[in-house]
């Protein structure tokens, strides 16, 4: 059992952990969730003393961990970090046996552990044991990261957004694998994520944090039924009962990470920019940053060879909308016109973004099923 008693942590002026009190039962899969910067990682790291709290105490099985030697403590707690953190200078086998070796296990015993663990995730020893991390996919690497944490059979394993960098498919598979492992090996796992899907999928118990405080501790179903506040409700997104209002204006549907250039740019430069961004048109601005029109690769290809700047190739045929224009009107322009996007302008004439079919679908999906970041 892990118990926090009045744990606080400050960095300078700001209170990062604010009087945390909580208990994590042995063999339980606990997920720490909350918005970015709320203190999840800090909380996790206080458990293996990578961070020391300013106030309060943490107990593992009723023993105050500040009294246990740091290095010893860490060897008895598995730790998996988001950036994978496999040692690139070691093979899979060496990586997995880091902690057993630190604990002076014999060679044969280390090897046996590696074989057993690899078998657990269906990665044949012969094929993988002698590979270096750089020779494996992200998913495989993170599997090894998890195995490394399990190698010395620690009763507790800490995981900090371990699957954050993986694609959704792999992520799902690894979630299931870890869930299975946890049940099978009966570990106490503390798992940090900011993805409610992941939390609901894996947790026995969810701890929701915000601004260094615990907002709610509950089983997944209970949190779904009775979210303690609006923030949790919005995190539940698609899962929760009542929906937020649908987005209304063009601005709600646009993407703002667009590529543009000034009208006096050289043709070659424009081509380079398009190539780099893998786009076939560029938005063009006047020198005062107001919208001037668009330039397409086709027009450059047809007429641009002898030109110095893109100026003569700028057209204003593309559909335009304003940030507060009704979303429906904007959609009409997109769906009924022949342009692949609608340019959205601010009222001062500068470019705010563009609405594409993809950005539209994505915003709608987010609205209906929750923010899937």
């Amino acid at each position, binding site marked *: 059992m892990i118990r926090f008693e009045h744990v606080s942590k400050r960095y300078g002026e700001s209170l990062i952990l604010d009087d945390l009190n909580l208990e994590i039962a042995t063999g339980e899969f606990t997920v720490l969730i909350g918005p970015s910067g709320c203190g999840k990682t800090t909380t996790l790291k206080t458990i293996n003393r990578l961070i020391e709290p300013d106030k309060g105490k943490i107990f593992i099985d009723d023993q105050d961990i500040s009294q246990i030697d740091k290095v010893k403590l860490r060897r008895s707690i598995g730790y998996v970090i988001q950036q994978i953190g496999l*040692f*690139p200078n070691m*093979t899979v086998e060496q990586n997995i046996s880091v902690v057993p070796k630190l604990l002076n296990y014999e060679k044969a015993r280390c090897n046996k552990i590696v074989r057993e663990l690899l078998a657990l995730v269906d990665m044949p020893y012969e094929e993988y044991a002698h590979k270096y991390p750089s*020779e494996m996919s992200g998913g495989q690497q993170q599997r090894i990261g998890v195995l490394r944490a399990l190698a010395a059979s620690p009763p507790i394993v*800490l995981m900090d957004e371990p699957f954050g960098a993986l694609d959704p498919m792999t992520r799902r598979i690894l979630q299931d694998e870890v869930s299975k492992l946890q049940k099978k090996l009966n570990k106490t796992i503390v798992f940090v994520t900011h993805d409610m899907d992941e939390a609901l999928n894996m947790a026995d118990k969810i701890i929701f944090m915000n601004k260094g405080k615990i907002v709610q501790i509950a089983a997944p179903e209970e949190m779904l039924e009775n979210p303690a506040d609006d923030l949790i409700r919005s995190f539940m997104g698609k899962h929760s009962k009542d929906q937020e209002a649908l987005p209304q204006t063009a601005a709600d549907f646009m993407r703002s990470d667009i590529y543009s250039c000034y009208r006096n740019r050289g043709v070659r430069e424009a081509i380079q920019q398009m190539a780099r961004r893998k786009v076939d048109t560029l938005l063009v601005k006047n020198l005062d940053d107001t919208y001037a029109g668009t330039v397409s690769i086709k027009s450059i290809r047809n007429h641009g060879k002898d030109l110095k700047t893109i100026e003569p190739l700028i057209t204003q045929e593309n559909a335009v909308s304003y940030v507060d224009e009704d979303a429906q009107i904007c959609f009409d322009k997109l769906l009924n016109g022949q342009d692949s996007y609608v340019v959205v302008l601010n009222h001062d004439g500068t470019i705010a973004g563009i609405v594409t079919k993809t950005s539209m679908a994505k915003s709608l999906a987010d609205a209906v099923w929750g923010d899937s970041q």
Partner: protein
Amino acid sequence: MSHFLALYGKRLSSAIVTHFWYVVVSVVFAFVIAFILGILLSRMPKRANLILPVISVFQTIPGIVFIGLLFLYNGMVPSTVVIALTIYAIFPILKNTYVGIINVSENFKEAARGCGMSPFQILMKVEVPLALPSIITGLRISTVYTVSWAVLAAMIGLGGLGELIYAGVSSNNNALIIAGAIPAAIMALLFSLAIDFLRKALIPKQLRRDSK
């Protein structure tokens, strides 16, 4: 040719041997010192932006200066050459050791800490191995330069292959110049091949990316 060998053969072989030992001894000393210093400096990374420029500035001092200064203080003894070359050879290795260790990503260090490694274990099992490519690059630079500056041992009358080059240049004897220059060039190439070999032996090929 045989005439030449009869005339200079003995001088040449002793010059090669002297030159070789100047290089090996200086580089070994320099490596030990620079490696330890590099590690010590890497323990104070907050001063990195102070330390690095200082090392880099010292690196611009040509080897002749160290040899010259030590000659004035220490006199015409072999230790003058060895100490001067050692000092010169320290800087590239020091810089590359320091930079190599400093650049090990915090991720790996944190993972190592999380595994329960002590600071010393983190250094030996994670930081140094990951810095090894950089360290060996530094070793190679130092070695090649040392072969080059060891030629100047002759400037203060202390032998080595420079003696032949030197004598050749001042007496306009092309055969002598070549007799010193070619072995010196070959020695430099052999040393750098040996270090490449060391690199291959010490660093798994998956990690061998930076070579320069």
